[in-house]
């Protein structure tokens, strides 16, 4: 109860129970026939060597691919196994991963539960509460797997989902990020290994080349008149070269080591940071645009006898026509050209996005 290892113990207990069941099933079957003959169409592998079996997570009844095509191509339909009244869809059929169907089902249930109940230890104030939570999750899982109180359990799950929507999403994002991080780390390590290997190969090749060169030089020196002196010179050069090579190698190794630590650390550290927790800017409905008009303000009402007819016309009003919009447009257009000069350049990048007169430039020209 006090260690977080508890749930994995229970889950492994459940799995071992499932394994025991599987063994029993296999004994009952008594043969590998089940994998040879489709239980629906009874066609055997002898006749169709490429036969593949599929299951649907709705009821886990096994059938061959051609049966699936035959029965479910026209849309959802009832499971062909006698006594099973589940409606299945072709899309949901998939290949069985585990030999035992019970295990397959348990894994599915666990996957589903893990998606919803994805709280972490850091979400809880104390270990005890986390353990309680884990036990709760395990109970739910157990109930689903063994069909105990299905309705109540489902209600529990959906209630949990409803009340923890935000945290579930957050934790899912976190998990995705961690996976990405691990992947990045793996990629990085692979790259490092590759570079180290390359360097090593290069070093070996260089040594070999130097040796050959040294031998050639030595032979040439031996042919010379004062052989002793020349040989000494060549040997000295070779020693110098090899020490230089060694130095080079050491330097490179150091570089590699440094690269493995410093920049990688930087880049991985960045990755590990939670997704840009930059402060949410206050909502700006207009995205930086200014809607105030420089030269005028709209009044709520404009007196105009010419508009009385429109105001009194029932059909115009019912169509959604707004006299106010006309008045605003009239004011707007009256001021459109104000403050806009032909010699000024029209809209350009550095003018702030304010909406004084959108038609001003067009009208001014």
């Amino acid at each position: 109860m006090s260690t977080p290892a508890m749930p994995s113990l229970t889950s492994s207990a459940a799995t071992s129970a499932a394994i025991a069941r599987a063994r029993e099933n296999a004994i009952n079957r008594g043969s590998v026939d089940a994998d040879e003959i489709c239980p629906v169409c009874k066609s055997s592998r002898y006749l169709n060597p490429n036969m593949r079996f599929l299951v649907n997570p709705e009821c886990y009844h096994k059938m061959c691919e051609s049966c699936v095509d035959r029965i479910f191509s026209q849309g959802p339909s009832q499971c062909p196994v006698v006594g099973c009244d589940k409606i299945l869809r072709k899309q949901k059929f998939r290949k069985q991963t585990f030999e035992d169907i019970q295990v397959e089902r348990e894994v599915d249930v666990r996957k589903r539960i893990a998606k919803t109940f994805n709280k972490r230890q850091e979400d809880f104030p104390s270990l005890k509460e986390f353990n309680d939570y884990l036990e709760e999750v395990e109970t739910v899982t157990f109930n689903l797997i063994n069909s105990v109180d299905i309705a109540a359990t489902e209600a529990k799950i959906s209630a949990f989902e409803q009340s923890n929507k935000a945290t579930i999403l957050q934790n899912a994002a976190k998990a995705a990020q961690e996976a990405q991080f691990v992947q990045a780390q793996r990629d990085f390590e692979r790259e490092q290994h590759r570079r180290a290997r390359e360097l090593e190969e290069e070093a070996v090749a260089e040594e070999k080349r130097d040796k050959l060169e040294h031998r050639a030089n030595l032979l040439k020196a031996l042919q010379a008149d004062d052989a002793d002196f020349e040989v000494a010179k060549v040997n000295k050069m070779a020693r110098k070269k090899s020490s230089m090579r060694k130095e080079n190698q050491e330097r490179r190794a150091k570089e590699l080591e440094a690269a493995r630590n410093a920049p990688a650390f930087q880049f991985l550290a960045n990755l590990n940071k939670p997704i840009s927790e930059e402060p949410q800017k206050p909502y700006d409905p207009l995205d930086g645009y200014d809607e105030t008009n420089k030269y005028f303000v709209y009044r709520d009402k404009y007196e105009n006898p010419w508009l009385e007819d429109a105001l009194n016309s029932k059909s115009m009003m019912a169509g959604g026509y707004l006299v106010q919009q006309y008045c605003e447009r009239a004011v707007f257009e009256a001021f459109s050209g104000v403050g806009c000069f032909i010699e000024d350049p029209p809209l350009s990048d550095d003018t702030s996005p304010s909406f004084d007169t959108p038609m001003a430039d067009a009208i001014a020209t």
Partner: protein
Amino acid sequence: MSSSASSSATRPSNAAAAAPPTRRTLPFGNGHTPVPASVVEIDDGGGGLSKDNSDDSDIDDPDDINTKTKRKYTKGTAPCYHRRFSSLIKNRKLGEGAYAVVNLGHRRATATDSAVPVAIKKIKVNTEFRDGLSMDAIREVKYLRELHHPNIIALLDVFSSKNQNLCLVLEFLDSDLEMIIKDSSLTLSMADVKSWMLMSLRGLWWCHKAFVLHRDIKPNNLLLSSTGVLKLADFGLARSFADPYRPMTSNVITRWYRPPELFYGAKFYSSAVDIFSLGLVFCELMLRTPFLPGNSDLHQFELICQALGTPTEENWPGVSSLPGYYVPHVDNAAAMVKERGKDFFMNTFIAAGESGVDLLMKMIRLDPRKRCTAREALDVPWFSQEPYPTKPANLPKKGGGKGIEKVGSDLKRKAGELFNSTDDASGRGKKVARKLDFGGGG
């Protein structure tokens, strides 16, 4: 500012080397700002300092301006692909409408700017409009030239081709909202929907602020840039509004998104029609299928009555005075639907949450006068609540621009193979030994 800066930058080279080609290829505007061509002309000719320049007189010549604008653009993608394939991608058609063909093109790279993909919309010379241009083209040019907003497609330039076809140079946008809605591999979160609604409302607000009705809002016309920004497009049915006593046609807006007052043949309507359409797009984003897919006008109207309620004098004062007022199943009182309350929408659109449903209900009210305006919609609390709207760059995308991928697939093709194996549905010839190609053709 920018245009005067760029023209002054060209001047020294022009005076010193007297090289007219340099002058010709350099654009007036910087291309990024959608500067109306006509405005630029005047700026360049009138505000210029080099009055004494000999070829200055040409600048005012409309033909010359046209050639210059034309020279800024070319068909096909930028020549980043291998030359061998340039012929394949040269005339890539992006789409063809009733009155225009849209081709992919790019703005030629200049000394300062790299090549930018654009869509060149060539207006067809239609037999129907022998006396002039089609209305749609005129409307599109007329309104797009005036509307500059990040959520409205930018009209970069206009020029005429050699046989006097009108070509509009538009921003290149590679997908639209319909593709996103139909792509079942994508899951759209409420934050994504919120972000798209926010961007389309901002675009619509800008249109309405300039007194332009879009009149064809549908997912198909809400385009998405490669950076995820949504832009209103297709202003072929747009119209300026608010003139009293000037009837407008009620035969606009794609049927599935048409508001009830237009079915009733209202000749005087307002910005509320666009709001209704956008409200239905909102529903579609949540349902991933059209909310009211009527297969005829009558059926459509029945669907509206079913979903929103039957229009009556109570919920829509004056509705019976509209020319086409009609109530389906008028004799059957049981079939009449009261205007739907909040619980109905809460049931259907539970994902939107309470404040989202509030916004939706304000947008698709039966009575156009009760609908909110775009500006009011932007102020609803839904946008400032959690989950916050997704940043455009993080919005789900349709396979990173399928179009380009398709072009690229030419390059993956192995030598000597006639068809792409992926295109070849039957996969025939897959196992047939390839005929060896020893060069020669290439």
